[in-house]
């Protein structure tokens, strides 16, 4: 009996829902066959085509993904193989120009977290292929090489990377405490994305601090937070990436597994500590690079007297000196 009742209530509810749906959508069709048409107007009249701007072509989507891959590859190559800070800055600027200002910040792994979550939870939600690719590729790269996406590819990161002027050292305790914020943010974003379709909210996109700059317009609160992050970013290295970016949280988990990454080579090091001082992100702990915190900026290489640009310059100089 209770089962029958339950079934009945379900049926009633379904009917009510169906009725509500029907009430929502009033038929949108009108008998307009008597409106004058091309053949009855005469005078050689031709009906103009309806203006219908088409979406971006699929090949542009593929181009985006290819460029993302290429940029990550370049980031890995520049940082791990070439160890050149200057080249990386160039890559950052290029990424900022394309993914930031040209694509207006909307091919974005950070936001794609929500798409993926919704797609996993909601059977009706259809996720764009680009979003899938954009979500997973940086993670896969992180599993092998660390957070290559963060340095030189992510436009949000690049923006903050470029404004770092005089990074202050954040006390370790505070750094760790603030670092937990991003997981809270991630959890909230997932929670809000899991809500039913109409109340669903994409928190990460809504509070994206820099997208307003990329679009040259945005809600005042967005631009204001972006400004605060940029000004703060002059003195605290990449505050959004380190403390708020939910995708950064995922990347740091993945990068724990990375075998290759930014390393302080033990048999070459001098224990001089210059790299630790140069790292604005507190990612070098006791003379060793911490992969999950390292944002691939290559500053440590730039500052190293034994390796990287300075050492290469030195080598060249010694060569000249020897020749004389």
């Amino acid at each position, binding site marked *: 009996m209770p089962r029958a009742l339950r079934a009945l209530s379900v049926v009633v509810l379904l009917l009510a829902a169906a009725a509500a749906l029907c009430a929502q959508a009033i038929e949108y069709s009108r008998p307009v066959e008597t409106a004058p048409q091309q053949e009855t107007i005469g005078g050689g009249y031709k*009906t103009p085509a309806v203006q219908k701007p088409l979406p971006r072509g699929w090949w542009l989507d593929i181009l985006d993904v290819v460029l993302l891959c290429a940029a990550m590859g370049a980031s890995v190559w520049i940082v791990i193989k070439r160890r050149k800070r200057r080249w990386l800055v160039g890559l950052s600027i290029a990424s900022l120009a394309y993914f930031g200002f040209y694509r207006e910040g909307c091919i974005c792994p950070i936001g794609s977290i929500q798409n993926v979550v919704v797609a996993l939870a909601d059977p009706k939600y259809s996720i764009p292929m680009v979003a899938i690719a954009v979500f997973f590729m940086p993670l896969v790269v992180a599993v092998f090489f660390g957070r290559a996406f963060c340095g030189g590819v992510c436009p949000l990161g690049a923006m903050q990377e470029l404004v770092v002027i005089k990074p202050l050292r954040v006390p370790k305790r505070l750094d760790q405490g603030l670092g937990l914020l991003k997981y809270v943010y991630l959890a909230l974003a997932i929670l809000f994305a899991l809500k039913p379709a109409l109340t669903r909210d994409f928190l990460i996109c809504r509070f994206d601090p820099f997208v307003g700059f990329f679009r040259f317009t945005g809600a005042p609160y967005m631009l204001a937070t972006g400004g605060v992050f940029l000004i703060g970013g002059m003195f605290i290295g990449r505050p959004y990436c380190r403390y708020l970016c939910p995708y950064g949280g995922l990347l740091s988990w993945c990068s724990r597994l990375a075998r290759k990454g930014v390393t302080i080579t033990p048999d070459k090091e001098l224990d001089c500590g210059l790299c630790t001082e140069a790292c604005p992100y507190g990612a070098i702990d006791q003379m060793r690079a911490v992969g999950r915190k390292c944002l691939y900026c290559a500053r440590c290489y730039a500052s190293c007297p034994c390796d990287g640009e300075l050492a290469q310059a030195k080598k060249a100089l010694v060569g000249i000196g020897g020749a004389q």
Partner: protein
Amino acid sequence: MSDAVSRRELLSKLVRGSVLAGMGGAALFLVKKANGEIVWQVDASRCVNSRLGEVGVEACTLCTSECVVSLSAVRAVNDFSKCGRCNVCPAYFDITSAVNELGLPSQKLCPRDAITRKMIGAADPEDPANNFYEYVIDEEKCDGCGRCVMKCKAPLGLGSITLKVRYNKCLDCNRCAISLSCPKDAVTQVPKMAGLEIKLAEHTE
């Protein structure tokens, strides 16, 4: 010593492999689900401006003010196959304004003057002022305020003008800002092909 190291390596390899496999599985599952892309589109049967039965209300202009793109990605589209080509188009003229010496309303409706009016066909020699007119909406000027849509709908007009998302401008935000504020939930995600129904309808003709 070396034994321990290799064991640790093996372990890390295992973990990495399983993480990769997990991600691959999730990606595959999602790829299977990603059947057809979705785009934001205005549902004409829900939009206040075009929905049948809404009379005596002011046009809703949220599509203009809420879009994150500086000139809204929503615009009014005139479907010429339905357009009555009226002499006094209520979407072109403000038909409540006083009549001028030409016998037409003195005021245009569009605040941005985005609609052009052009006589078409042969003129009636007996009454040259009364004829068929073609109304073309300039995509570059229109910002989707929906005033013309509101006026074009039945019973006054034929409802040939509706609001559409222009895809070349739309950023396809995860959550369309217009849809958040739309009082009738008229901005919905539809499969890409259905979103292009005007184009498809033309092709099938």
